Structures are given as C-alpha cells and as structure tokens.
C-alpha cells in the first residue's frame, strides 16, 4: 500500500452518514475504504478527529494561463480543490493560431483581469492546437485539469477577423465542428460560450456573433461525446436568462448533452430572479433536460478607487460629480476644505457616518500607510478623531488617488436566501472564477466559506450533503466518472480537514504573479492535507510539495 489514512471520519461523497475507518491507496487509486487496514504503508496519515473526503472539484475557473507556471493553481489546491475546470466563458488558450494571440490576451485582460506579465515571458507559447496546450501542461500539474475549449477561440481560428463581424457560413460551421471534434479527441471536457462578454475594446467577443444555428451545430458535436456546454447568459436580465434556459434545454434534449450556465446571483435589486430562473430550470429538468445553474457560495464585494467614478458614489450626486472630474480638478476639489465639507455633509448627513463606516482599506501605495490595509474607515476615523468619509478622502489624496477600498457583502449576501439556494437539488455549486479578477478580489476559498457559513453556522447542509455537492455531484454533472467518491477503484483525490475549523482566511495582497505582479488571495483554514492521485500535494505542516501528480481528466 502506498498510503494509508487512519482513523478518519470518512465522508465518501455519496451524502450518506460519515463513518470511522481507514482508507488505503495504491498506484494513485483508492483500494480500501473503511475498517482497519492491517500492515504498514509507505506513507501513513493519522486523521483522527478529521474528515476524510473526496477532493473538491471547482467547475468554473480561469487558471488556463496560471497553470503554465503554477501547475498547483495556488492557492486553490490548499483549499482542498483537486480538480479545476479552466476554459470557461468562451476563452481558452487553445486552439489558437499564433497570429491571434494578441486578441486573446486582450480578451483575457478585459474579462479576467490577467496582467500583461502573465503572458509576457512567463511561459513559452509553443502550441496552436488543443493537444499542444495539454502537452505544454504535462509534467507541471499538481492539480487535475478538466479543460473546456472556448467558442470564441474556435471561431477566431476558423473565421479570423470575420469572427467579430458576422454569422458563420455553412463551410465555416463545418470547419468549427471539425476543430471542436479535435479538441474533444485531445481531452477537452466540453465547450464554453458567452452571450455577454466584451474584449478590451469593449466590443463583443467572437462567440457573441454566433447565430443559434452555430451553437446548435457545435452542440451536435458535443453530443457525439456526451460532453458539457457551458454558457454565460445575460445573468443580469431575468427574462433573457429564462430564454437561455429554454435554449439550453432544447440543446440538451436534442443532443443528449449536459449544459451549465453561470453565474446565477441573488440580489436585492432583482429579488425574484433566482426564484423565476429555478422554476424554469425545474420545469426543463422535469422534461429530462440537463441545465445546471451554477451558484457561488461567497457574497459579492465591490472594490473602488478615486481614480475612476465608481457607481458606488451614484447615490450621492456631489461625490459622483466629483469623481467624474478630470484628475487634477478632482484633486483640487478634494483639497478644498469648504468643498470637502459639502461632500462630507452629503455622505454623513446629521453626523450619521454609516455610509462608509464598514468600508475597508484594501491597498495603498505609500509605505507609511500600509498599516491601514485591512482596517475599516470607522476604526481609522476613531483613531484620528475624524469621520469615515473624511479619512477616505485623506487616504486617497495621500496615495495620489490610487488607494483602493473595499465595500464587502454588497450582493448575493443574504445567508437566509443563499443557504437554501445552494442546497437546492438543482443548483450546481460553482462559479468561483478561480484565477480571474485577480487584481479586484480573491476567488479562492469558496469551499471553506460553504462549510463555515452554510454547514457550521446555518446548517443549511449536513456535512455529508455539502461534501456531496462539491465532489460527487460535480463529477456526475460533468461526466467525470473516476473522481468525486471515496470508493475502491476511484482516483485517490482526497481532502482531509477539520470540520470545526475549515474556512477561508482574510483576503490579502500577494506578489506571486510573474514579475512580482500583485493579486488578491485567501489562504485556507482547517485543511490538513490534500492528496492528488495518491500523492500528498499540500499539507498544513509542510505547505506545497513538489508533487506533479495532477492529470488532464475528461468525461
């Protein structure tokens, strides 16, 4: 036996009650679950008092680029995520002709906020085909990767500049079908497309120029392999989303494929959105269609600076008008004591400082202001004998308007609504966007957030139910047949954690991108060990290990 995990509380992914016992692994596969395993193994882990669960599967990420220099998808792995699905939202790094690379980089930068340095010199761009990209990943992976092929790049390959000008003709449709077939043969787990995204010039991405006939033609190829279609619908418009649900259902039924759309949000501004969409999903599921809405566990935070006119200021016309001033005029206005008094009176009428009290300082450029990072404006104001609005302005001016602030929990933030939503049998927990938006907020630790808030605090789930949602259910939805369960014969992807402590840590700035580029991360709490294909990949004691046991997995 290569590995024995002893005395663990085995939560096997089926949703059935946990039980105490050992788990044995040989040659990257689980060979024994439960009971006492006699003898010794090459490695033994004592998991007494800990949960032993299947590795978590994250179905919506954008780790496509990061995996080329960080095959462990840090810090997702330390949160217990052993399989990631990159290539969402119509964007993947293959298939892509060399001449189209700048256009894809622009799209990644606009939609996923990937910095230039992530593409310039951080890896050798050696491939054009999908199998070439997978070859480039070989030997680097510390997590499993189930990659989607992006509709936008398939379109770009076949149509060139016309991909963002018009619908495809019959010949081009056939060429796209052939290209998708090559991707699926190479190992793509499905196709992603988007109805909402724009490129760096704010023009629609190529997939948005497709007529329904094109998506239908590509879905027919997915049907040959029974693989996934992922879609970004017009999620901000309920009626259009309902139409997309119907459209996906038709494709699912016609081609016998699973489909998923992301994101589905709850918002105070559209309180009936989730109810209506889930009702339509239920109706279509009852017909036998597979249309899985992806819902994220974490609330939505908003970050802003004084450099641009964030709509957070739109509720206070004086502030909004000020933020829209040219830079120098804005600085002059904010430095004018009388003008500033007017703004403060507008934001904090009658001395009510609630509006900005909970806003936190996220980042500063002045070294002496670094101790302010992570603290609320109310705390800082109390120290300074000021008010939150005044200290926000002072910090901005001191940092040449480049100080960044965070207003947390502004949307998708009512636990009493989100808990039951996540637990809904037709909701697919996902939409983490791992590896994207890296300079705006951290997209890691959604699983820890799930256990902390919706298992421990609110009990919307049992422990077993939550594990099932992010392991076996995810694997089944995506057609991944050898992962997601602790069962003899399954791949040995295993996460060991303390059920009383698992959580996400506070958000922090990290400078671990190429050329010391900054991103926001959250580290894990309560995770003890993460095992990928039988190899210990991360542990709370030793951190990341030099294991390259990740694989490309598909349906």
């Amino acid at each position, binding site marked *: 036996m290569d590995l024995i995990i002893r005395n663990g509380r085995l939560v096997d992914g089926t949703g059935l009650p946990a039980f105490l016992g050992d788990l044995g692994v040989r040659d990257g596969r689980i060979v024994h679950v439960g009971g006492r395993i006699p003898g010794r193994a090459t490695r033994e882990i004592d998991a007494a008092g800990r949960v032993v669960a299947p590795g978590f599967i994250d179905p919506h990420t954008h780790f496509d680029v990061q995996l080329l220099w960080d095959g462990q998808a840090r810090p997702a792995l330390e949160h217990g995520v052993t399989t990631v699905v990159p290539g969402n939202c119509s964007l993947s790094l293959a298939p892509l002709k060399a001449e189209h690379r700048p256009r894809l980089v622009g799209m990644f930068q606009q939609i996923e*906020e990937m910095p230039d340095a992530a593409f310039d010199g951080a890896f050798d761009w050696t491939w054009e085909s999908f199998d070439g990209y997978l070859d480039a990943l070989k030997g680097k992976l510390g997590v499993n990767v189930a990659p989607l092929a992006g509709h936008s790049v398939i379109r770009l390959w076949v149509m060139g500049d016309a991909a963002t000008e018009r619908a495809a003709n019959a010949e081009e449709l056939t060429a796209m079908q052939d290209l998708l077939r090559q991707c699926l043969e190479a190992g793509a787990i499905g196709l992603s497309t988007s109805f909402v995204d*724009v490129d760096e*010039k*704010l*023009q629609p991405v190529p997939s948005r120029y497709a007529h329904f006939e094109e998506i239908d033609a590509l879905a027919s190829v997915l049907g040959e392999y029974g693989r996934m279609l992922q879609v970004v619908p017009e*999620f*901000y*418009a*309920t*009626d259009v989303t309902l139409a997309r649900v119907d459209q996906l259902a038709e494709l699912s039924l016609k081609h016998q494929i699973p489909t998923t759309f992301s*994101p589905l*949000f709850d*918002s*105070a*501004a*559209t309180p009936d959105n989730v109810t209506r969409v889930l009702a339509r999903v239920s109706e279509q599921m009852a017909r036998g269609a597979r249309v899985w809405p992806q819902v994220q566990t974490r609330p*939505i*935070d*908003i*970050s*802003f600076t004084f450099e*641009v*006119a*964030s*709509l*957070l200021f*739109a*509720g206070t*016309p004086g502030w*909004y*008008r000020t933020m*829209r001033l040219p830079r120098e005029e804005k600085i002059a206005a904010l430095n004018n004591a009388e003008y500033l008094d007017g703004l403060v009176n507008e934001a904090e009428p009658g001395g009510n400082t609630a509006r900005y009290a909970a806003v936190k300082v996220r980042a500063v450029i002045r070294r002496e202001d670094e101790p302010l990072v992570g603290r609320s404006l109310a705390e800082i104001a109390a120290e300074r004998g000021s008010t939150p609005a005044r200290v926000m302005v002072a910090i901005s001016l001191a940092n040449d308007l480049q100080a960044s602030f965070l207003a947390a929990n*502004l*949307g*998708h933030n009512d636990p009493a609504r989100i808990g039951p939503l996540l637990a809904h049998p037709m909701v697919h927990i996902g939409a983490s966007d791992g590896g994207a*938006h890296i300079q*705006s*907020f951290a997209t890691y630790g959604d699983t820890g957030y799930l256990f902390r808030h919706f298992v421990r605090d609110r009990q919307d789930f049992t422990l077993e139910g939550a594990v099932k949602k992010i392991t076996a259910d995810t694997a089944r939805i995506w057609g991944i047949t050898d992962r997601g369960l602790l069962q003899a014969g399954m791949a040995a992807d295993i996460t060991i954690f303390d059920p009383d402590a698992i959580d996400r840590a506070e958000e922090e700035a990290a400078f671990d991108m190429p050329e010391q580029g900054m991103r926001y991360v959250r580290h894990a709490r309560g995770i003890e060990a993460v095992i990928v294909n039988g190899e210990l990949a991360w542990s709370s004691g030793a951190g990341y290990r030099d294991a390259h046991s990740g694989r490309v997995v598909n349906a």
Partner: protein
Amino acid sequence: MAEATIERAVVTPGHDGSAELLVTLRYGNGGSGHVSLDADGAARLFDLCGVTRLEDLAGQSWRHLMRILDQPGE
C-alpha cells in the same frame, strides 16, 4: 403605444467586483425588463439624460439607453 421609459435605476454589485447600474425599463404595453450598465455606460446615461441624480433617471426615454447599447465603446 407609449414609448418605453426608465422606471428606476439602482446600483448593484457586478459579477466582476465593480458596481453596476441596473436599469428597469417599463414598456408601453406594461411589461418591464432590466438592462445592466458598467461605470462607463452609466456615466454616459447620466450625460445623455442630462441628470446628476440617480433618481432623476426615472421617466427618461429608453432611447438614451439604446444609444449606449448600440455603441458600447463610444
């Protein structure tokens, strides 16, 4: 049939971590629908409508919105 108008506009959290403007339109036949604008689009809507207050967007013509949606990068 009466022209569609903006019924209300509220600031909402966007998928990408920035604030967005959710505009509710009321159509002549009584139906309604939502359109979401990013910060740039919202600023253009304020300008096109000639208003500075969020609540003053209510009652404005849908045609302003259509100009923004037709020419997103303008």
